[in-house]
């Protein structure tokens, strides 16, 4: 069975993690999301999304669920992986003081789980000041240094110059991440969680909205897989996530996944059609650069 993707959503108290989770649930678009929270006290789901509630598990419209895991994240992940039907994607909403990288290390002890990225949510108005705080500054900088995607809330309240400065600061504080400006957590699910296959086709659906766009790279020949993955993740092409299957120079099939500035290549299990979906910022997605990178048609 393919490993179940898990995205950790971290960030300090008040940054907007819960708002983001609710937004993703509202726009799950057929994706069965399971949300794990570690604080029973603050079950973060908007009341109108809840269909039923029992035994610490909340059922949500569209087949999504939410449960609390207390101190036993592994047990909760194993329970979710054993569910029928299995969720498509798990979101772990961490506590405000947790270090997300530590959560990923722990959750990977569970079988059948794959880390699909660390999203750290910050409050654009306060994060730089908070990062200087005697008590929690190092917690926030540790969270950011683990991030692959930073969702920057409240950017609508910032003057343009301040926003530019903030983005420059984040590029240093979160060197492994791509920062996505947002208002009240409204970020396209595709950008955070990857693009879903279009119903019935097995082909990735095209994703596009005001902020984000996607494209499919379908190179003809074999590729230097590792280098391509690295360039996709770290190059100046505006790519937030990329996922797909490509052949290497010798013809072996590989799964390529990038989130933020981190990449991963693994030998493909079973046959797959080749092609690589890249999702990025509408105004920054460098179509011709990407095509040149993969020697491909777009």
């Amino acid at each position, binding site marked *: 069975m393919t490993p179940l993707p898990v995205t950790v959503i971290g960030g300090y*108290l008040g940054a907007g993690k819960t708002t983001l989770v609710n937004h993703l649930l509202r726009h799950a678009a057929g994706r069965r999301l399971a949300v794990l929270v570690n604080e*029973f006290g603050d079950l973060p789901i908007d009341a109108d999304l809840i269909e039923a509630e029992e035994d610490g598990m909340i059922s949500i419209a569209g087949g999504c669920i939410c449960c609390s895991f207390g101190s036993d994240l592994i047990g909760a992940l194993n329970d979710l992986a054993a569910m029928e039907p299995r969720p498509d994607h798990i979101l772990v909403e961490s506590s405000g*003081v947790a270090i997300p990288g*530590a959560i990923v290390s722990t959750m990977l002890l569970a*079988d059948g789980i794959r880390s699909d990225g660390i999203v750290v949510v910050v409050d654009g108005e306060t994060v730089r000041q908070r990062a200087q705080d*005697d008590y929690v500054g190092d917690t926030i900088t540790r969270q950011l240094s683990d991030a692959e995607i930073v969702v920057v809330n409240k950017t609508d309240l910032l003057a343009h110059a301040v926003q530019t400065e903030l983005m420059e600061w984040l590029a240093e504080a979160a060197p492994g991440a791509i920062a996505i400006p947002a208002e009240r957590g409204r970020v396209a699910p595709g950008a955070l969680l990857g693009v879903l296959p279009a119903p019935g086709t097995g082909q990735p659906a095209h994703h596009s909205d005001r902020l984000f766009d996607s494209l499919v790279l379908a190179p003809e020949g074999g590729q230097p897989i590792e280098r391509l993955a690295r360039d996709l993740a770290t190059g100046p092409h505006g790519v937030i996530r990329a996922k797909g299957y490509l052949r290497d120079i010798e013809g072996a099939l590989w799964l390529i996944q990038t989130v933020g500035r981190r990449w991963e290549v693994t030998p493909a299990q079973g046959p797959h059609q080749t092609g690589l979906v890249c999702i990025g910022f509408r105004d920054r997605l460098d179509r011709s650069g990407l095509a040149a990178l993969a020697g491909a048609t777009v």
Partner: protein
Amino acid sequence: MAETIIYAARKIITMAPSRPEVSHVAVRDGRILGIGTLEELASWGDYRLDDRFAGKVLMPGFVEGHAHTMEGTLWRNVYVGWFDRMDPEGRVWPGLKSIDAVVARLREAEAQMSGPETPLAAWALDPIYMENRRVTRLELDQVSTTRPIGILHASGHIMNVNTRALELAGLMKPGVNHPGIPLGEDGLPLGPLYGPDAMTPVGPHVGFDRAMTDCDERGLRDYGKLCVRAGVTTCTDLAARLTDDSVDMMLRVTGEEDYPACIVPLRVFFGMSAEEIVDYCVSLKPRSTERLRLGRIKAVADGSIQGFSARLRWPGYYNGAPNGLWYTAPEQMSELYHRALAAGLQVHTHTNGDQATQMALDMLEPALKAHPSPDHRFTLQHCQMADAAQFRKMRSLGMNVNLFANHHFYWGDEHYRLTVGPERACRMNACRTALDTGVPMAIHSDAPVTPLGPLFTAWAAVNRITASGRVQGEEERISVSEALYAITLGAAYTLHMDGEVGSIEVGKRADFAVLDSDPTQADPMALKDIGVWGTVQGGRIFPASAL
């Protein structure tokens, strides 16, 4: 009318300001009718003279202000600690001085077990006394390859397991990549598991389940026996989850006719919002009984110093380890303090590092201004690294402190050379400074981390000797009488119970620690060796020999 019994003793140390030492105490209805001479007490009318304590020294029953009743449950596992330790039945298990000896004791226990797959669990291992030698799964495989084996360390933060335990947890595979799980040359987990994240997936397979911080029914009964053997008549359970079931169980067990102690469980601030825990504890409070006191909250600010998870101020850890972790964010602590003060509930806050202490102080001050609360007695627990300025602030805010006085015996050498360095190691658990500053102070054992034993804790505070025999921080030593006050009235004060226990005075509960000799006359170095005959709790007599 209820019978009046007058006990004659060799000496009664009362902690009562007007009559600090007397020869007789009169008890009626489980309460103290009076103290004085036989002649004075006889004036109350008919009485029965009981001279069974004629050769004994009575003190107020000891109050343990920071312990966990889970020690009662842990004793059903095999004890493999470095120090000699007495179990609930009174058997002293000799300390084990090598890994070979640990393996030998596990083999003995294994030989008596039925069913080849039953888990074998042990506890209290402390390899810091064995040059921090690691115990691998292969060594534990010598005991059994068919049953899962787990050994919990004394700190509670590390576990050693065998191959079978790793298999059952699904971790006997290559590619495990976790900072808490070291791998061997073969790429497979070596056996030690560091930290709760690494221990949690394996714990249930070796008999340490997820809710380990709570004791079970038999454990609570066994814990009562440990209390009697240590002279304790009132004891906190400092981080209970207090589920409906466990509250019912604790009410039932402590309500049994012969339950020998008053238990004071604090609901731990995890898994509930501040609003919920305050509402919940308000609802629990009226369910309190004579022997189960509900309605207090325990918050945890940071981790442990020896686990490098405590929050330290500059210059941080002596060995350069990165700063520790917040277990509760400052904003959450602030909200808890505000709500608890508004509701009239008391909060005890675990702070180990000095930055955690500072955070608690900083959060409490504005909350107190918003909800003026004379006599709130919010208490800092452990508070091991506090400096003089922090003690002054505690006094200004009306806080209490419960210092981990015996910690420097067990881990003082380690703190000196590794975790915080010489200067801060010498001022850790600064009892002298606390008292001189005027902060109401208790001292504690944190059982099961260290054994329940107020006289031992008092000995540690008086002498400040480390396991290697050095005096560490002699300026922070306190006198024997100050230490005896800390384990009686001092601890009772931190629980708002000083009006009913902690001293032998008219009107208070008839709670006595019955001692074989007089701690005020003993060589301070012999304080820990004073024999405990048993206790009297609520007028009921509990000889340790009859448990």
